[in-house]
């Protein structure tokens, strides 16, 4: 019998259809991934499977029983873990166990087993709110396991968690499945999708494809070429027109290389080489790889016509500063709070025309660092240089040249899209005659033409982000801060964001991006890894990978760096 089934499952909230007729069949003992961006319907599906929400129509079953009746064997990890931050680790576990009527002896036994397996045994009297992201996630998992479930539903369990913890988490999942548990994971992260036995790609409430990751990748019937050349934007421009005739399926700039999706490896190589030669562009490197899941997802979305608009940005003002100059620099920046040091002695710089990626897990200090660089927070030590200014970084003149898009978005929900854009234009002093073309641009970029009178609060996450991005650049800043700009956004939208980011950089804007998605980091010119307040390594993506020969991805590099650092710290401690 299948562990979990869903038949024509639907859920609508008023007029909004969150889940549209999905069918699922998940076998016992597998790790199944429900993959999709924000707004895909993953959480609603989970809530129906967990028996905490009635579907509008259709049925679901857990081992043949209705979800509501099967709650005793279902474990559900919600987004944001649903722990009680003001209870200790022990208290969270005993409360959850008591709710589930687990006998005290069994609770004690299971709790000690899982807590020590997860490395939480020495933290039993720590408040859950004081645990790091990775530990919280493990505690939440322990709470779910104490009840001895047969099915585990995990809703974005690793969002914002550092890669080391994420890897540990997945190895735990593999062990649990070996013990007989059935696990369903929801995530927007395509790299994580690779770790599942089978996945379903979900978008706007529908399941587009189901299968094992390799099936889906193979289903593309394509190969991926990695092309490296010094003139990336020109190469991209030259190659793009070629993709429409079918031999080159997709061209995408990824950081310091271009990925070309081709139907046939050899044929594709020839085409690329000849195009580059015709344009007199040198090829530094060109080799063949497997396509990525991201390619598959994008191809599916394209097939369904979800292409994102990419109107050209109506620049009005010439660049006053030459590319190559330092736009933004930190010198020995430190920030201490009462109980801990958030940022420790960080020195880095970003030049005009450069995209710098600041990588780190939640709680590593990215947000604090960015706030110090913006001038929002005063450093405990060190100094900041911003847009040519040292002391007066909080002045109106400097802020006029800065663009900022915060993580939680910066738009007013009660205002319409048009009103928000007018507000930003007004506050940033955009001249009246420039406002209409720029407003049109933002609406087109966000796919909201004709809907400028919609209340911003009613827009789904991905669209709000696009509007926020547009609002952040409406005054043509020369330095741009983007704090997690594409979290939860679908792959196509992510591409158009990065196209725009690249184009802005090409026009001379200095851009600082933070993210905890290492795949996205590939898009940057330079990267800095931030771990517990320390900038542990800084290099180009290619340089990073070269530091760790044998690393297949930036994530491997990151984990290697962190592990080495921990060993070093332990070593110095042992010596001391």
């Amino acid at each position, binding site marked *: 019998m299948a562990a979990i089934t869903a038949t024509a499952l639907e859920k609508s*909230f008023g007029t909004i259809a969150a889940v549209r007729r999905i069918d699922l069949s998940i076998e016992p003992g597998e790790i199944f991934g429900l993959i999709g961006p924000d707004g895909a319907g993953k959480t609603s599906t989970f*809530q129906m499977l*967990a*028996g*905490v*929400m*009635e579907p509008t129509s259709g049925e679901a079953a857990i081992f043949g029983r209705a979800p*509501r009746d099967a*709650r*005793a064997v*279902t*474990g*559900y990890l*919600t987004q*944001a873990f*649903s*722990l*009680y931050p*003001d*209870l200790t680790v022990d*208290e969270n576990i*005993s*409360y*959850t166990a*008591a*709710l*589930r*009527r687990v006998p005290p002896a069994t609770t004690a036994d299971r709790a000690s087993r899982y807590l020590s397996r997860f490395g939480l045994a020495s933290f039993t009297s720590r*408040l859950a709110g004081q645990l790091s992201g990775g530990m919280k996630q493990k505690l939440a998992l322990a*709470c779910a396991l104490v*009840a001895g479930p047969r099915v585990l539903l995990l809703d974005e369990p690793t969002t914002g968690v550092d890669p080391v913890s994420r890897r540990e988490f997945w190895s735990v999942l593999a062990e649990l499945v070996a013990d007989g548990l059935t696990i369903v994971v929801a995530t927007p992260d395509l790299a994580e999708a690779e770790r599942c036995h089978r996945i379903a790609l979900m978008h706007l409430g529908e399941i587009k494809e189901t299968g094992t990751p390799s099936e889906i990748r193979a289903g593309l019937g394509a190969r991926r070429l990695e092309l490296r050349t010094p003139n990336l934007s020109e190469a991209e421009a030259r190659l793009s027109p070629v993709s429409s005739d079918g031999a080159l399926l997709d061209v995408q700039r990824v950081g310091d290389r271009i990925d070309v999706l081709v139907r046939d490896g050899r044929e594709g190589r020839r085409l690329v080489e000849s195009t580059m030669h015709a344009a007199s562009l040198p090829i530094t490197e060109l080799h063949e790889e497997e396509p990525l899941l991201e390619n598959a997802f994008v191809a599916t979305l394209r097939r369904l016509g979800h292409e994102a608009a990419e109107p050209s940005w109506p620049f009005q003002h010439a660049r006053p500063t030459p590319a190559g100059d330092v736009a933004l620099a930190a010198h020995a920046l430190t920030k201490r709070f009462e109980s801990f040091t958030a940022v420790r002695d960080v020195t880095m710089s970003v030049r005009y025309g450069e995209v710098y990626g600041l990588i780190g897990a939640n709680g590593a200090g990215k947000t604090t660092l960015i706030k110090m660089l913006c001038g929002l927070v005063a450093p405990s030590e060190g100094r900041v240089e911003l847009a040519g200014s040292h002391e007066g970084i909080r002045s109106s003149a400097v802020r006029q040249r800065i663009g900022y898009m915060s993580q939680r978005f910066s738009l007013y929900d009660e205002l319409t899209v048009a009103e928000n854009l007018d507000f930003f234009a007004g506050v940033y002093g955009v001249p009246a005659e420039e406002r209409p073309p720029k407003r049109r641009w933002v609406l087109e970029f966000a796919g909201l033409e004709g809907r400028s009178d919609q209340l911003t609060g009613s827009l789904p996450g991905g669209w709000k982000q696009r509007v926020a991005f547009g609002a952040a650049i409406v005054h043509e800043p020369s330095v741009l801060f983007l704090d997690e700009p594409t979290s939860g956004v679908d792959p196509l939208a992510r591409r158009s964001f990065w196209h725009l980011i690249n184009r802005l950089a090409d026009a001379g804007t200095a851009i600082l991006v933070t993210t905890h998605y290492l795949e996205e980091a590939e898009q940057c010119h330079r990267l800095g890894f931030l771990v517990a307040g320390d900038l542990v390594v800084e290099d180009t993506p290619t340089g990073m990978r070269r530091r760790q020969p044998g690393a297949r991805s930036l994530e491997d590099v990151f984990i290697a760096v962190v592990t080495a650092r921990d060993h070093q710290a332990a070593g110095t401690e042992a010596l001391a």
Partner: protein
Amino acid sequence: MSRIIAQARKELTQLVRDRRALVLALAVPVAQLFIMTSGISLSVNDLPIVVQDLDRSAASERLVDAFRSSITFHVVSWPDARQPEEALMAGAARAALVIPEHLGRDLARGRATPVQLLVDGSDANTAQLVSGYAQQVTRAYDSAEHGGGAGQVLAAVRLWFNPGRSSTRFYGPGIFVLVLSIFPALLASLAMSRETGQKTILQVYVSNISAHEFLLGKIAAFVVVAIAEGLLLAVVLRADFGVSLAGEPTAFLAGTALYLFCVVTFGTLIGAAIPEQAAAMQVVALFGYLLVFLLGGLIFPIENIPIPLRWVSNAVWGRYYIEIVRDAFLRGGGWAAVWPQIAAIAGIGGVFYTLAWSRLRRMQLAV
């Protein structure tokens, strides 16, 4: 049952860890009780009065002395050139005694002599008190002057239950009820709306705990806190205001326990209905202060409320509890006196519980 205890224990742990909530639960109610009991009173104890003596005879001076030496009034000087009404207008005095020109002569001739007392009527209640007290002073003056006359009836006034005319003995229990009606409800509603607002309630739903167990666990925890508050308040009432229990306390204790259940259930109901904490608080405040304070007869007598509103008053739970409390602190009537009120409170509490339970019955997301 074990789930109820587990739920209650979790709530109490969370409360104890949250310092601000603890302050709210214990310190603020006490502070409120203290401030409000000290500050609220209708009995003006110091009435400034100006006197315009147009007679200046021995008799009139004795009359002025009578006012001067009274405890309730104190005579303030006002320049003769200015009109006595101006003192009222300026707020310098509550009343102005205008002694006519021939008072001494008229009194000696045995006439009933009119003396005008101008009273500031803007505060109607105090104006009545002023008038009453002034009458007492002139009556005493008359008695002293001529023995009061033959064949006159004397009044001997006895004050029952509060011979000291202490305001705090009346208002103290009222504020006690007000504070106990609001703060436990507030805490309960905040805890409940935080669960639903932050979605931690999803884990509760997944655990298939029943609505009864969940509710009773939450309510039990906050009733415990409320009892602690009540004890603290009672101690303050006793220590600072000398208000203590008269008579046998079991009816009071039972009534209090039921009332706190009623109040906490009310708060939980609001918290379940409104997942946004700030909004839930405003509703509790609205019902708490407005209804209990206004229509419960805590400070101002219920009898004065216009009839249409008085019907609403019958549904206000505080109205019954205040009678229980007043009886316990002032009269000592016990079960015989207050069993109907106890029954009413139990009934209202039952209604609230049923409403809260029906709201949570599905133990599912309500969309």
